[in-house]
């Protein structure tokens, strides 16, 4: 197999933005995208006329056929590079990869990446159901009444069976991320959370309860990517892409090659190799956490601990700010926000902020290298990226 052109140190993220988060009934999904985009642009110090590329993902609440061009029209931007990327939750990291490739090959110089929707207030119950049901295979899964939590629950059940992972360890993931969300000024959930509350929450799909499941928020997120040269003289401290990799193994759970081994190992390997770094070099990690079992599996797949040790990593406090490897310092999708592809995008926003420094009590001391992992589907599509505040 031909080795791809390395993207290491070729591009930088120079602006990040989040919309208002939570229940924002007075704004549309496109409006949330625009607000996040404006905040990211202001953060970068660039002008709107500098944007010559736009990438976005998808929206259940505003399901336009050509969302990329719809968003450009809404923003009044006429880019020479544009696409809507649909890799589920993996889309933000995949979009960063497409943006980096476009910049390196000269297709564009400065690219806006944004995603989000008003999923808390903008969907009728029927529309929400039909959109989310569509995740199961229409002919061979949906007739059995599964659900997204149900599919992840089957993964959790298998992990518990093979490795002895416990319900309490999964609950601790929710408790950890809530503790971090309390330190984030605009996180959706701001009420302290105790382990027992997670265990006692309304059961959804055994072994997962309501508080093992991510939020449903109104939210948009954005970041601006440009070449490493261009990034030098901008307002914000640039955060450089060191490594990035993706891997896709299936779409529907019944076709997953394994219920304990997924594509994050491969996407992570590619990212580590490009960066010339390993798990021991990572100071902070933002892992996809649509359900509490997911970051446990990702810790294992990405080499931060052995298989079967992900649960203990959380319950022993290693994933807390101040611990060995702080995970989801913004509160993740379990407590900060989840709104379609914006959920994983906030992991990128938070990684950039941690690497710039100055976050007060939320700051991971000495953070120089961050890893972000996005996954989409039922642990189907994976993209891992490594960012650094220095070319190292």
């Amino acid at each position: 197999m031909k080795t791809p052109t390395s993207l290491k140190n070729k591009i930088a993220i120079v602006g990040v933005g989040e919309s208002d988060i939570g229940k924002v009934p007075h704004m549309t999904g496109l409006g949330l995208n625009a607000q996040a985009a404006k905040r990211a642009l202001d953060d970068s110090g660039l002008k709107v006329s500098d944007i010559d590329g736009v990438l976005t993902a998808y929206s259940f609440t505003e399901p336009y056929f050509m969302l990329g061009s719809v968003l450009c029209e809404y923003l009044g931007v006429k880019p020479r590079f544009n696409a809507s990327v649909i890799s589920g939750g993996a889309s933000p990291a995949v979009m960063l990869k497409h943006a980096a490739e476009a910049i390196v090959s000269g297709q564009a110089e400065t690219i806006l990446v944004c995603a989000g929707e008003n999923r808390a207030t903008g969907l009728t119950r029927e529309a929400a159901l039909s959109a989310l049901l569509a995740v199961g295979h229409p002919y061979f899964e949906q007739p059995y009444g599964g659900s997204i939590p149900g599919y992840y629950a089957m993964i959790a059940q298998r992990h518990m069976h093979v490795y002895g992972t416990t319900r309490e360890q999964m609950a601790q993931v929710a408790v950890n991320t809530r503790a971090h969300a309390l330190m984030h000024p605009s996180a959706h959930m701001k009420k302290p959370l105790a382990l027992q509350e997670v265990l006692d929450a309304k059961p959804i799909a055994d072994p997962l309860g309501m508080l093992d499941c991510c939020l449903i928020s109104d939210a948009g997120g954005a970041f601006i990517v440009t070449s490493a040269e261009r990034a030098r003289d901008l307002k914000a401290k640039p955060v450089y892409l060191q490594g990035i990799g993706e891997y896709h193994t299936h779409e529907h759970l019944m076709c997953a090659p394994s219920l304990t081994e997924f594509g994050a190992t491969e996407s992570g390997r590619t990212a580590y190799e490009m960066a010339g770094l390993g798990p021991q070099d990572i100071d902070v990690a933002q892992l996809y956490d649509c359900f509490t079992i997911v970051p446990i599996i990702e810790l294992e797949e990405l080499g931060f601990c052995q298989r079967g040790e992900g649960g203990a990593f959380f319950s022993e406090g290693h994933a807390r700010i101040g611990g060995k490897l702080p995970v989801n310092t913004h509160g993740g999708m379990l407590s900060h926000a989840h709104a379609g592809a914006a959920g994983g995008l906030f992991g990128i926003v938070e990684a950039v902020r941690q690497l710039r420094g100055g976050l007060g009590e939320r700051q991971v001391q000495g953070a120089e290298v961050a890893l972000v992992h996005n996954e989409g589907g039922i642990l189907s599509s994976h993209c891992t990226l490594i960012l650094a505040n220095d070319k190292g």
Partner: protein
Amino acid sequence: MDKTTLPTPVANADSRPYWEAARERRLVIRKCNACGELHFMPRHLCPVCWSDRLEWVDAKGTGSVHSFTVIRRASDPAFAPLVPYAVALIDLDEGPRMMANILGANALAVKIGDRVQVTFEDRGDGAMLPQFNTVAA
């Protein structure tokens, strides 16, 4: 309860023989005559070697539970009256994995590794859905 209000199997060009066999209470799977691989779900090409020399073979209808969940809150309102119910991934003895419900009085006591036997559930107008019951090992 009456299951005929639940989603009905949809047959298409890939799967029509599968659903027609189910109406006769037979579980069939795809076999590749080039590489020998058996696979689920039905498709036009062998997902291993891309041969289109495929045939349908009868599965024994026996297997074991690879994983499962008990749904306590249904996403699809049609399933709400059934809650709680078990959804499982079944490893057929021939190899392929499929999804189904575990039915029967002790369905909610299902465990990983339990032996299962296919059964068929009437979804109306003679349409039958392959399902499974746990059986003594």
